[in-house]
């Protein structure tokens, strides 16, 4: 039985999971690859790789309107992937799922279509200090185009969570939209997006959740959250690159204009006019990323096979274990919620080491076959202005990581201390 065939509550057998990921039996710099950079992109199980390969080998054809067997099959598989994703995040139907390239494009679509029509001069747009560039820049661009005001919810005193007072204060300005991350890619903080959405709705704001770091790692139910938009990337949840989605409530999407015109997004075209296709196709001009949809479909099957609650529990356990070990190391500072607040922390550990630059830290990890990330993690305002450092090192865990991988990271920190002669 493969690791993905049991969705009952159970501990994840990581040794079985690892076998499903071909890359994890390869080497990096002559050492077993220890992959601790899943917040950047996840590795892919053989089930996803095979699904894509199988599509190209056995039923590659363009979707929609092909009156032959393999085109019908490709259309069916592609559409089925939307049904699966809709169910996976608790949307009502596939009509609320617009495929895009990634989370960034999903947020840009919301800003360009919904934002363009609904945000005017002097209006407020509200985001937070813990956003990724993908949830900052599209709103800066919209604010610049429209003469709108971009406001930020501040972080609390220990810079581990959003400051509730700041949130209330900013909402008093009646922003048109609140765009907030579900889980921070730097701090690991999981925001209570359900409560935030309720507060924002009370003020009449539309709410967009950046789910890039939550959707792969924990159960997500957009209807329970109550948000209007939810953005996600396939490549961070075991799927291929180039496929992501914007969930939108049906009435919102129905009222929005497409930003790209072309084939597939139309119902009919005359020499001067055209009419739009039904949801969600009106937002998807041109030939779709068919292999992406099929690969994402296989990824969702894999995640469902293990169970999102099990994945979340497993990551909390490995993250807590790593934090306990790292917490005892002198000169090492971790960011985000502390070990007593694991309920609001994802499997991301950003840290600094006194006397060693994050790039040197990552390099020494690399020499030992361990992949971590160092830099500003596409969150320059958070890292530089709020945390007050140029860069941090980041470890991030997923289903294929276990305590041995955490130990490897802890050992590598020891090596950093040895190389830089740190006490």
């Amino acid at each position, binding site marked *: 039985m493969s690791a993905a065939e049991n969705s009952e509550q159970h501990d994840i057998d990581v040794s079985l999971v690892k076998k499903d990921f071909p890359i994890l039996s390869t080497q990096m710099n002559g050492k077993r690859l220890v992959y601790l950079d899943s917040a950047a992109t996840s590795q892919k199980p053989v089930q996803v790789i095979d699904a894509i390969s199988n599509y190209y080998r056995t039923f590659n054809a363009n979707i929609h309107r092909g009156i032959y067997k393999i085109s019908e099959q490709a259309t069916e598989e592609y559409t089925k992937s939307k049904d699966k994703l809709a169910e996976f995040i608790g949307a009502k139907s596939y009509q609320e799922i617009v495929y895009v390239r990634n989370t960034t494009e999903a947020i840009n679509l919301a800003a360009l279509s919904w934002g363009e029509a609904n945000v005017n001069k002097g209006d407020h747009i509200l985001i937070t200090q813990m956003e990724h560039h993908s949830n900052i820049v599209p709103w800066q661009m919209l604010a610049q185009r429209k003469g709108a005001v971009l406001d930020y919810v501040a972080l609390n005193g220990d810079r581990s969570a959003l400051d509730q007072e700041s949130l209330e204060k900013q909402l008093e300005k009646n922003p048109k939209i609140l765009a907030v991350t579900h889980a921070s890619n730097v701090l690991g903080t999981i925001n209570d997006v359900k409560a935030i959405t309720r507060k924002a709705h009370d003020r009449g704001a539309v709410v967009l959740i950046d789910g890039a770091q939550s959707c792969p790692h924990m159960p997500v139910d957009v209807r329970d959250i109550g948000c209007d938009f939810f953005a996600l990337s396939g490549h961070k949840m075991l799927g291929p690159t180039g496929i992501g989605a914007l969930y939108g409530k049906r009435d919102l999407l129905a009222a929005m204009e497409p930003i790209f015109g072309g084939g597939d997004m139309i119902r009919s075209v005359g020499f001067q006019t055209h009419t739009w296709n039904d949801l969600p196709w009106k937002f998807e001009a041109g030939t779709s990323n068919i292999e992406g949809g099929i690969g994402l479909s296989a990824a969702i099957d894999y995640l469902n096979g293990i169970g999102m609650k099990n994945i979340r529990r497993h990551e909390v356990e490995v993250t807590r274990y790593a934090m306990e070990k790292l917490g005892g190391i002198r000169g090492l500072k971790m960011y985000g919620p502390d070990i007593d607040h694991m309920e609001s922390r994802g499997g991301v550990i950003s840290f600094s080491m006194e006397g060693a*630059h994050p*790039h*040197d830290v990552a390099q020494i990890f690399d*020499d030992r076959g361990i992949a971590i990330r*160092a830099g*500003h993690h596409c969150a320059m305002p958070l890292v530089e202005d709020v945390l007050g450092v*140029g860069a941090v090192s980041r470890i991030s865990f997923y289903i294929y990581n276990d305590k041995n991988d955490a130990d490897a990271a802890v050992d590598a920190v020891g090596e950093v201390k040895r*190389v*830089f002669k740190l006490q």
Partner: protein
Amino acid sequence: MYAEEIIAYYEHPENKYKMDDADDSYSDFNPVCGDKLTVYIKVKDDKIEKMSFEGDGCAISMASASMLTEVAEGKSVDEIEKMGPADVIKMIKVDPGPVRIKCATLSLRALQKAVFMYKHGKRD
């Protein structure tokens, strides 16, 4: 990568100070990792009489900047302009790979821009 010599230059850098009477200076940074430095030069008879630097960054960028201050001294501005990544690799005695080479050459790029401004009479 982290030979004793690199660590020694990183921990005890040579010529790491702000040169108040510099003929020219140039500030540069590496947006990927946040390394930043300013290079100062004193030029006499078209030769680098003295080079110093200030900055924050990784061991590779700081050690190579420090080593460069010694290598550059006495070289003509033409010689400085002809230097490239291969010279930096020779200087630090390790090939840091395609990503880290940008850290290693940050100081050389800044030095070359300072020299360019000196030659063309442009100032910050």
